[in-house]
């Protein structure tokens, strides 16, 4: 028998290529359609605890009640709760660095949603790191109607100067 050191160790290459189409369901579909058709941001509001969920969900996990048709329209302005300046290149994720992922509340929503924070000069990411602060006001900026696809990418956020 050959000793371990003499064995050529093989790795077997493979690749998963599985296209998917995820069902957004009635609630999130309405949210996405409103973004696309009317540039409006809708959320669901729990009638019991009054939490406003953005992105909307069809139920409140805290009260465990259905939020079907419990819609509220949100003002397209809000607050930067936290953020990350992403400088690592991760092949396969949609965006090339540098980019800023912001976690924002909009129109007084109780929950944050992730969004791209655009309109910043990212040539010196460390400088942006020092300048951005939690609590800064942000606004939603929609793409032109012809470019909106019924996706969370139909808008992004920018700082309100």
């Amino acid at each position, binding site marked *: 028998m050959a000793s*371990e050191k003499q064995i050529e*160790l093989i*790795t077997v*290459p*493979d690749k*998963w290529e599985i296209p*998917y189409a*995820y069902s*957004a369901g009635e609630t*999130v579909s309405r949210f996405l359609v409103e973004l696309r058709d009317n540039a409006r941001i809708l959320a669901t509001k729990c009638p019991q605890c009054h*939490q406003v*969920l*953005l*992105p909307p*969900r069809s139920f409140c*996990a805290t009260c465990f009640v259905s939020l079907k048709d419990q819609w509220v329209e949100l003002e397209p302005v809000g607050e930067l*709760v*936290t*953020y*990350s*300046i*992403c*400088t*690592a290149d*991760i*092949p*396969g*994720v*949609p*965006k090339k660095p540098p*980019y800023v*992922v912001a*976690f924002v*509340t909009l129109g007084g*929503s*109780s*929950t*944050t*949603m*992730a*969004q*791209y924070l655009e309109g910043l000069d990212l040539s010196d*990411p*460390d400088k942006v*790191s020092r300048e951005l602060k*939690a609590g800064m006001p942000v606004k939603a900026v929609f793409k032109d109607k012809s470019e909106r696809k019924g*996706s*969370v*990418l139909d808008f992004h956020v920018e700082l309100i100067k």
Partner: protein
Amino acid sequence: MARRVAIVGTGQFKYKTKHLTVSSPDMYFEVTRRCLDDAGLTAKDIDAVVFGIGPEALDGVVGLDKWCADAAGALNKPLMRINTGGATGGSAALAGLDHVASGMFDVVLVVAGQRMGQATAHSQYTLSLGFDPIVAKQFSINSLPLFAGDALLCMQKYKFDEYHMARIAVKNHLNALNNPYAHLQIKTTVEEALKAKYLAYPLRLLDLCPSSEGACAIILASEDKARKLAKRPAWINGFNARATIINPGLGGIDSTYSWDWITRGAYKMAGIDNPRRQIQVAEPYIPVSYQEIPAYAAFGFCKPEEAAKLVEQGFGEMDGEVPFCPSGGTLCSNTIGASGLARVAEAALQVMGKGEARQVSNVKNALAMAGGGIFGTGGMTAFFVDVFVLGTEPY
């Protein structure tokens, strides 16, 4: 608990970037064999197996349990597979505990692992596949921006800065030098840690865990069996586990917000009312340095406003008041599926007096914690937390 349960054996398989000498079944066979040897048992002595494997895309095999069940000693035995992301190993230990405490089984093997190195893509790409695909994944989210955004929240709340994070990072890296199974073995200093490049502000290279392959196993036994099998069993005196939702919009909560009340539940069960006096060592799941700072407060060792001060005083260092992460922790080895179980195994080793070069003196009670899932995105996904209190005597 219906019946007392103790850990009577542990086994680990080196955590490293990629193993070439073992296939997945080879690895699970080897770690299982080591664990059985440690407890002085054979596969015949095992009544049931709990198999912890994290998300499928990390290994690149759907249903790895099917390929490796026999390698994990489960041939013709009851087998349950557990997956709660990073908490998988902790949740698997909890399932094993339930098996024995309920009286269903007397001796249960818990095996957990992950082959993070098999994906030849960036590990953060495979981790990005775990996000809500409808409203969150579009934002190129992976663990880096999540932890970075969460670190910023914790820095505001607990009033610490990059120096404190570097102190924790360096401590855990130096601890790993005493653990032959640890992946990263880096002798470093606070000055070096603070000069390392940012991977995502405010997190620098040494603040973040590596992506590791490896496996861990433990054997749980009922009281009568445990007393026969081990000279000094590690009694599981308290535990608590919750699926939480963490969204920073909800009052600015951070990833550690639930750790105090979950831990209090485990403490109550184990009769711990003064953790600073009663717990001698803690091995929580800390994949990124900053999380250890809120943990000092969450585990009841200080008030939230005192946590940064404890870092400055070296509270969690090996010669400090309560050593944290003596194994080097998840910061130095992160196998996702096995990481939670490795925390439980390390706490057991400390209680059993088998900590070798990293043994903390006079351990009566040890805390272990596993955590995993996703926090902070707009999509609401669960973050799982499992806490265990192990003791030299049953409570």
